[in-house]
C-alpha cells in the first residue's frame, strides 16, 4: 500500500482528480481499507496546504484539493469521513443578516479534509441558534463569519449571548470574512482570520492546545489574543 499511498498523495498534490479517482478505484478493487485511502488523501491535502503556506500554491489550488477530497470520499465511503481529531464538533455559520457563504464553505471543506468535525449551521444564523447548538453539542469552538459590515453587530450579539448564557469562557470564538483586529476587539472574539487555510490551522492548534499539547501557531495571518 505504501506505493499506492505515495501515488495518491502525489496525484492530490498535482491536483489531478482523474488520477486520484483511478488510483482509489484500483486500491478498493484490491481490497484496501477505504480509510487507508482517506488517510492518503488527507496527507495530500495537507501537503497542498503547506505549498499554499509557502506561497507556491494559491486559493484555487486549495479549493481544488478539497474538491478532490470530497469526490473521492463519495466514491470510497458511504458516509462522511471519520474525524481524526476527537471531541465535539466546531460550530460554524454565517451570522444573522449576512447570507455570504463562499468563504465559509471553503473553510469547512478544508477542515473536513484535515479531520475536523464541523457542524455547519448555514447562513443568516441568529445568535440564539449558535448558542443552542453549542449547548446541545457541548462544543468549545465557534467560528462565525460575515462579508458585510452589518455582520459585525451580529457577531457582537452572538458573543454577548454566549456570555449571558455562561458559555463565553468555555468557548473559543473565531471570526472570519471581512475582519481584522479592530473588528475582533469590537466583537469581543478571541481570534480573527481572513485566510481560509489560516483559519483551519488555527482550529487545529486550539484543539491540540485543549488536549494539553503545545499549540503550533505558524501562520502570521491571524492574531493570537487570549480570551479575556
Amino acid at each position, binding site marked *: 500500500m505504501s506505493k499506492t499511498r505515495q501515488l495518491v498523495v502525489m496525484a492530490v498534490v498535482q*491536483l489531478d*482528480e*482523474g488520477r486520484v479517482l483511478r488510483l482509489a478505484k484500483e486500491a478498493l478493487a484490491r481490497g484496501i481499507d477505504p480509510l487507508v485511502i482517506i488517510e492518503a488523501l488527507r496527507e495530500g491535502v495537507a501537503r497542498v496546504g503547506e505549498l499554499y503556506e509557502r506561497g507556491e*500554491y*494559491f*486559493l*484555487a*489550488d486549495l*479549493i*481544488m484539493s478539497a*474538491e478532490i477530497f470530497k469526490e473521492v470520499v463519495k466514491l470510497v465511503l458511504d458516509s462522511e469521513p471519520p474525524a481524526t481529531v476527537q471531541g465535539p464538533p466546531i460550530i460554524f455559520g454565517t451570522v444573522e*443578516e*449576512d*447570507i*455570504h457563504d*463562499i468563504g465559509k*464553505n*471553503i473553510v469547512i471543506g478544508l477542515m473536513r479534509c484535515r479531520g475536523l468535525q464541523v457542524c455547519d449551521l448555514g447562513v443568516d444564523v441568529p445568535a440564539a441558534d449558535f448558542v443552542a447548538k453549542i449547548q446541545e453539542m457541548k462544543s468549545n469552538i465557534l467560528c462565525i463569519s460575515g462579508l*458585510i*459590515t*452589518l455582520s*459585525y*453587530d451580529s457577531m457582537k450579539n452572538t458573543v454577548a449571548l454566549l456570555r449571558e448564557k455562561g458559555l463565553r469562557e468555555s468557548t473559543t470564538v473565531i471570526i472570519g470574512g*471581512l*475582519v*481584522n483586529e*479592530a*473588528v475582533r*476587539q*469590537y466583537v469581543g472574539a478571541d481570534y480573527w482570520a481572513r485566510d481560509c487555510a489560516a483559519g483551519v490551522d488555527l482550529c487545529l492548534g486550539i484543539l491540540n492546545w485543549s488536549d494539553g499539547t503545545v499549540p503550533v501557531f505558524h501562520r502570521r495571518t491571524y492574531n493570537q489574543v487570549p480570551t479575556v
Partner: protein
Amino acid sequence: MKETMTAEERLTAAISCRVPDRVPCAPLIESYAARYVGITNHRFMFDLDAAMDAFNEIHNDFPVWDCNRSIYFARYGPVSEKIGNTRVKMPGVELAPDALYQFHEYEAMTRDDYDVILNEGFKVLLESFWHKVHGSSPEDITEAQAKRIVVWNREIEESKRRGQAFLYGSLSSLPSDTLSMMRSIQAFFKDLFQIPDKVEAALDIVTDFLIASHKKAIASTGIKTAFIAGTRCSGQFLSKKNFERFTWPYLKKMVNELVDDGNIIYLHFDSNWTMNLEYLLDLPRGKVVLECDSATDIFKVKEILHGHTCILGDVPPAMMTVGSAPEIDDYCKKLFQVVGKDGGFIFSTGCTLPMNAKNENVKAFFESVKKYGWYF
C-alpha cells in the same frame, strides 16, 4: 484654498496622472445613502426618485463629493432582479426592508453550458441563465435593459446638475469573473484544472461579447469610460501561471480595445492584486484607473504604478464601521500625502461605503479632502 477646476477637469487631470487643483473625491456611496437620509433600503433600491433625493441630500451636506461613481443603475431592484449576473436577494423582498442587498451564488451555469457558449454564443447562454436564476422572460430582459439605461441616464443628468463628474459609461466584470459568478467559484476553479482548453475558448467568446456590450452602453450613456470589475481571478486566488492564462490576456484585450476606441478604463479590483501590479504597466499609460478596495496594498500600488496608472481608493469599510473619526482622519491624511503625492490619485472608499458606517466617520472622510487634498 479655492477650487480652480471643474469636477470634470479635476478628474481628467488625475486620470492622466497629472496634478489637479485638489484630489477628486469619489466614494462609492449607494450602500450608505438610504440609512443616512432615513429611508429603508427597500425604498432606496426600488424607488428611483427617493434614491435620487438621497444622493442630492448627501451632496448638499458634503459638496466636496465631486465625482459620482455610482453603480446604482445596475443594482436598482427592477433591474438586478431580472438581469443580474447572480441571483440577488433584495431588501423588502427576500430580506428585511432595511437589509443590504446581497448576492446568492450557486452553480446555475453547468459545465455543459460551455458548449452553448461555443456553439450558440454567450448571448444565448446569458438569456437562458437569466431565465434560470431570475425567471426572466425575453420581454422581462428587454424591459430591464431599457430600465437600466433610463436609470443610468437619470443618474448622469442629476450628477451633472449637481456639478459632479459621473464616472461610469459602461459596466461589466472581467470575462473570468463573469463565468466564475455564473458557474460558482468552486465549480469554475475546477473547470480551470479539468477543462482548461474549453474555458479558454469560452473566455475568447465572452471577451468579445463584453467588449461589444461596453461599446453599446457607452453609445447610450455618452460617457466614454468602462467600469471593469475583477475580484476572484487575482493573484490572491490564481497562481501566476493560471493568472497569465485565464485572467491577463482577456483583461489586456478588453482594456486595449476599449482604449483604442477612445475610452478611459476603471479597473474595479476587489481582493488582493498586489502581486499582479506589474502587469498593469503593460496597459496604456494615463488611460486606466485602478480602484483598490483596501485588500491590495495601495502604497505598493503607488510605488509601482505612479505616473502610469491613476490610483483610486481606499478607506477600509471596517474602519468606517468600527473605527473612530481620528483614525479615519489619520488614514486619509496618509492617503493624500503618500498616494496623492504628485497627482494621479482619486480619493475614495475601499469598494463601498458601508451601510452602517458611523456618520462621524463619514464626516471625517469628507472633511479630510478639505484638510489634506489640496495641491495648490
